[in-house]
Every structure is written in structure tokens, then in C-alpha cells.
């Protein structure tokens, strides 16, 4: 696979490191290994070609200064990518940014590979498992996953795109399958047959998880009109009783809804938890009071539901990043 790596930094020539032995844990057995090295230290690629897909495990060891590194090759990418170790930041064509932290994955398409990646000390050793697919292979699954059909449609128009706007966390079961793929020491036909089913399993699990996760969360609770009214009421009650906030149970009792529904339903309707919402409101209120200048710190603390001013100050600083004293001084 042709692969060029360039960087904005001057490139020095490093001796190409010899292929690591199997004992260091980075080797993908029975595969073709590609290596490159430069000022960014070394990259190790392990390739495995099957008819419908190509599996690549990449290890990036970056020892140079933090910065953007550009990577190019002639193939287009249509891949499922897993961040096994370290974080990934890159920019694809059309300004699409991709950020994945360790343990996340996504599927992406880009018409030509011109990936600009960010590396710094936090991701000096990054390992990814990439599975590149042929479009016809993915097309078979597209009927079950409309979002995948969308990605393939964008591909027809040569538009870079991500399967999901935010990456998903891979599950332990998926990691088990990935490890089975990585550790597989079969050869020949046996390897081909085994890889075919393992990759198909991983793809299904990955699609199912990344595309259905939102639906799943919503499924957990059903709200009737009555409940919705109670939730609005609970919010109102909370804002009115800021100086003496009720506990979750008390609040639930007050408005006549069970506390589980209150907690889950609140998040669903208002998009944040009760505490987040309440905290935001009382911090804004505190800021107002501070600007008015006619109240002492203790008064404000009590009015916003704190027992004393030191707890209040700490919470205030935690929320705004500066102490209440700073406002008092400046306004």
C-alpha cells in the first residue's frame, strides 16, 4: 500500500527500525508489516488483505515536538476505526474534524487520504485498529442501517463524512472480538474464513452500538402528559425555593411524581440533570446579587441555598473559575 508521510517540520532521516519481535505485543501475526520513520519517530503498520476488507493495526510512536502531521496515501478511506491506545485528533478533507479518545470508535469516509493529525505528549504512542471496507460489502448492511446508507451515499458524491457525529465507546464484547482478530495466528484459508466472520461480527456490533445507543436511552422512560406537567412544576418549585432547596425525594413528593421518573424525565425534557439546572440558576442568581452590591457574602450564600459563605465561595469558583470577591471588587 503506497503511503507518504510528510510533515511541516524538517524531516530527518532515521534508520528504519527492524520489525519488532512477537514478544513486544505489538505484532499482528501473519501479516505484512509496513514501516516508516522520520522526525515523528516511527510508525508501524500491519496489513491483512481479504477480499472485502483490509485490516490495519497502526502504531504511532511520536517522539518529536507536538504539532500537526500530515499523512497521505492514494487510497480512499472507508473505514471503521478504533482508538485502542492514546487519543486521535485529525482533520479530514472538507474541514471534518475527528477527535477520538482511547476506547472510542467511529466509521468514516474520505475520498483521498489527506489526514492531518495532531500529536503531542498525551498521545505519543497511539494504536489504532482500522478496518477498511469495500463499499459493496457495506452496501449489504445498508438496508438495516439507514445511517450507513447515508454514509455510502455521501461517498458516491465524494464527500467526506462520519457515520456518527460523535464517536462511541466500544464495549468489552467488541474488544474481545478485536483481540481475537489481533491475536489470530491462523494462516491461509483458515485465516481468511475466520477473519471474515470475526470482522462481520465486529462490524455488526459496532454499527448496532453506535447507531442505536440514543434510542436505547430514550426507551428507558415513558412520559405521559401528566408527568410532563409535574416536571415543569418541579422546576418552578425548585427555582422558587432556592434558599432552602428540597432533596430529590422531597421534590418528587411535593409535585406528586416518583423520584425515578423525576430524575430521568427531567433530564429528558430539560436536557440537564436537576442538580446541574439548579446549580446553574443559583450561580447566575448569585452573580446578580453580587452585582447589586447591597448584600453581604453570607446573605447571598444563604439566599442561594448554602449553609455558609465558604461553601458558597468554593462552589462559585468551581462554576465561574473566579471567586465571588473578584466580582465585588470589579463591579
Amino acid at each position, binding site marked *: 500500500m503506497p503511503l507518504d508521510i510528510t510533515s511541516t517540520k524538517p524531516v530527518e532521516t532515521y534508520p528504519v527500525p527492524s520489525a519488532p519481535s512477537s514478544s513486544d505485543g505489538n505484532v499482528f501475526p501473519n501479516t505484512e508489516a509496513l514501516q516508516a520513520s522520520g522526525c515523528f519517530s516511527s510508525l508501524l503498520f500491519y496489513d491483512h488483505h481479504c477480499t472485502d476488507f483490509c485490516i490495519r493495526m497502526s502504531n504511532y510512536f511520536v517522539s518529536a515536538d507536538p504539532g500537526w502531521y500530515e499523512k497521505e496515501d492514494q487510497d480512499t478511506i472507508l473505514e471503521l476505526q478504533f482508538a485502542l491506545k492514546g487519543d486521535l485528533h485529525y482533520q479530514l478533507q472538507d474541514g471534518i474534524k475527528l477527535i477520538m479518545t482511547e476506547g472510542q470508535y467511529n466509521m468514516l469516509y474520505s475520498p483521498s487520504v489527506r489526514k492531518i493529525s495532531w500529536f503531542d505528549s498525551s498521545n505519543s504512542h497511539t494504536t489504532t485498529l482500522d478496518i477498511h471496507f469495500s463499499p459493496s460489502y457495506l452496501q449489504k448492511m445498508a438496508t438495516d442501517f439507514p445511517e450507513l446508507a447515508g454514509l455510502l451515499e455521501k461517498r458516491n458524491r465524494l464527500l467526506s463524512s462520519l457515520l456518527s457525529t460523535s464517536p462511541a465507546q466500544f*464495549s*468489552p464484547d467488541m*474488544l474481545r472480538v478485536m483481540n*481475537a482478530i489481533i491475536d489470530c495466528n491462523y494462516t491461509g484459508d483458515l485465516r481468511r474464513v*475466520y477473519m471474515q*466472520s470475526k470482522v462481520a*461480527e465486529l462490524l455488526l456490533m459496532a454499527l*448496532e452500538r453506535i447507531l442505536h445507543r440514543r434510542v436505547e436511552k430514550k426507551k*428507558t422512560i415513558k412520559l405521559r402528559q401528566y408527568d410532563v406537567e409535574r416536571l415543569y412544576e418541579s422546576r418552578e418549585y425548585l427555582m422558587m425555593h432556592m434558599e432552602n432547596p428540597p432533596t430529590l425525594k422531597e421534590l418528587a413528593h411535593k409535585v406528586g411524581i416518583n423520584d425515578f421518573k423525576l430524575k430521568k424525565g427531567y433530564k429528558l425534557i430539560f436536557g440537564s440533570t436537576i442538580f446541574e439546572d439548579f446549580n446553574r440558576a443559583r450561580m447566575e442568581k448569585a452573580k446578580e446579587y453580587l452585582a447589586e452590591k447591597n448584600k453581604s457574602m453570607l446573605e447571598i450564600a444563604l439566599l442561594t441555598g448554602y449553609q455558609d459563605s465558604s461553601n458558597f465561595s468554593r462552589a462559585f469558583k468551581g462554576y465561574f473559575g473566579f471567586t465571588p470577591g473578584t466580582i465585588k471588587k470589579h463591579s
Partner: protein
Amino acid sequence: MRLIATNAGEISLSSSLPAKLKSLQVRESIAYGAEGAFGHVLLQELEGDGISMQYSHLQFTENDKIQYDLDQPSLCLHISLSNTFLYEVDGLGTGFLHERGLNLNYVPSMHARVKVECERLYRHLTIFYKPEHLSPLQESFPGLDLFLKNTEAGKAGQFNTTYCIADHPIMLLIDTILKCPYTGTLRKIYLEHIAMDILVLALVQIRESGIKAITPLSEEEIAPIYRAKEILLRDIEKPFSLTDLAEETGLSPYKLNGGFKSVFAMGVTEFLLEQRMERAHLLLQEKDMLVSTVAKKSGYSHPNAFSLAFKKYFGYTPGFVQKNSRSSGNESNPE
């Protein structure tokens, strides 16, 4: 659908299951069952894409012999999931399959008799393949070409000539099948791929058993091993002692360990670790389960020791399972 038992007589199976059997039903399976004075029977068909499976439960109140007939060519992998099946199959002869034992064979039509001992629960999985699933693998497994030729000619035969054991990865895959959360066409595709994985792993096991043969335990020898397993699982939370377990089962520690090796392909401590770890993995997926609680429930008094052992076994931490398992309470079990 019906079964004929020598003592219990004819048992007619119905698709409307009694409550007790319903709880054993696998998602989207076509199930036939019966419950009565004789005990209970549950046969479930699982449809993959081109591969089908049969998962069966049997429990009888008296010793019995059950006749099973299926008038269609069957190229199957048989795996015993619990207990020892003593069978007699037309064209293949008699044999037995202990728990985790596996056979790969072909019969032009299946006529089998299975012996069951009273009050014991028998579970069994049969995966029905087609010759085209096996033919791409001919070059990797000596003798497979001949087996497929015989199959094509309609000649009954067994591929494995020695006793074979389903190892841990195979058992995990079977677990995946039985707990598969997917539905519809996805489920079919998924099940087919898992079934292919199992086939590959089973063929590798068969090939290896030809190199390093396992002597299976006799019917008498197996009983104390099952008993030891029961005790082991019952006391999984307690500290383990091989000598105590040996004493309770009336075997020497050496015999006990050897027995485990020939049934489960691993020694007692290794088996215990596997069970503890799998149990911990499951518990961690439950909601609001503390790592320290999971540690205790899987036999570790110190959470740190547990976390280390877990990481060593799975390659990831208990925290990773807690954070990323999707079973937020409404998943996995259909019931």
C-alpha cells in the same frame, strides 16, 4: 412434533410453552416443549443465515431412553453443554459426550437414541452446517476432503476420530449465541458468523486432538467430576482449597485435577479462575454494582487483588466493563 421415550412413552411437544420453559426460551427461537410427570423437554430452533441450530433441554424424573428422529441429511456439530449424553445413532454407532465434548458428523437422516439419568439436566447444542461451509477449509484440515466426499455420497460418518473438547473460546461463542440481543435479519447474519467461528475453532480442536489425544473419562469416573464442579460453583465466593474439594468428592487431588483436565481441558484452579472471571464480567454489567461487591461475589476478599486478576485475564479493567457495557438493565434477557 413428538418424542418417544421408552418409559415415559410418547411425549407430544407444543409451541405454547408452560411458564417454566418460557423462561428458558432464547430470543426469537422457534420453541417446542412439554412438561409433565415425566419431567420436561424443550427443543429450540435458532435460525441463522443458511445455518440453523437446535438447542435442547431435557430433564426426566426417571431413567429413560429417548428416541429422536429427523428425516433430513444432517451435517452437524454436536456439543454437550451439561451432563453426559450416552447415544446410539444409526450409521454411527454408540458413544458418549461429556459436558463440553464435541462431535462433527454426518448422517443422511438422523435416528438417535439418548439415555437420560433421572433428575439430571441435559443441555445440548447442535449446529447444522451445509457442505459449502466446510469446503473452503479443506486444505487446512487433513481428512476433511474425504469426509465431505462421503457426505456428498450420502454416507454416514464422523469427522473426529478421537474425543474432542470445546475449549473456552468455543463456550464463550455459544454463550454469545444464547444471549444474542439482536433481532431480525441482523440476528440471522450475526448467528451465521458466530456459527462459522465455532466451526473453525472446533476443526482446530479436532486437528489438535489428533496430535495430542485425550482419554475421556468413563461413565463412573465422570460422576465425581460433575459433583466437584457443582461444589466449586456453589462455593465460588468462598476461599478455595483443592484438598478440601478432593476430600468432599472422594478423589485424590491428583485424580481430581486430572479429571478436570480431561473434561474441561483445564485443571481445577484454571477452571475456577475461568468461572470466577466470567461471573465477575457478568456482574459488572449489572447496574449499580460496586467493584468491591463483585470482587466478593467472585471469591476475592480484596478488590485490588480482584482488579489485578481481572485485568490479567481479560486485558481490560473492571471499570472498563462498568463504563461501557450497554446492559443498562433493559438489555440481554428477553424475560
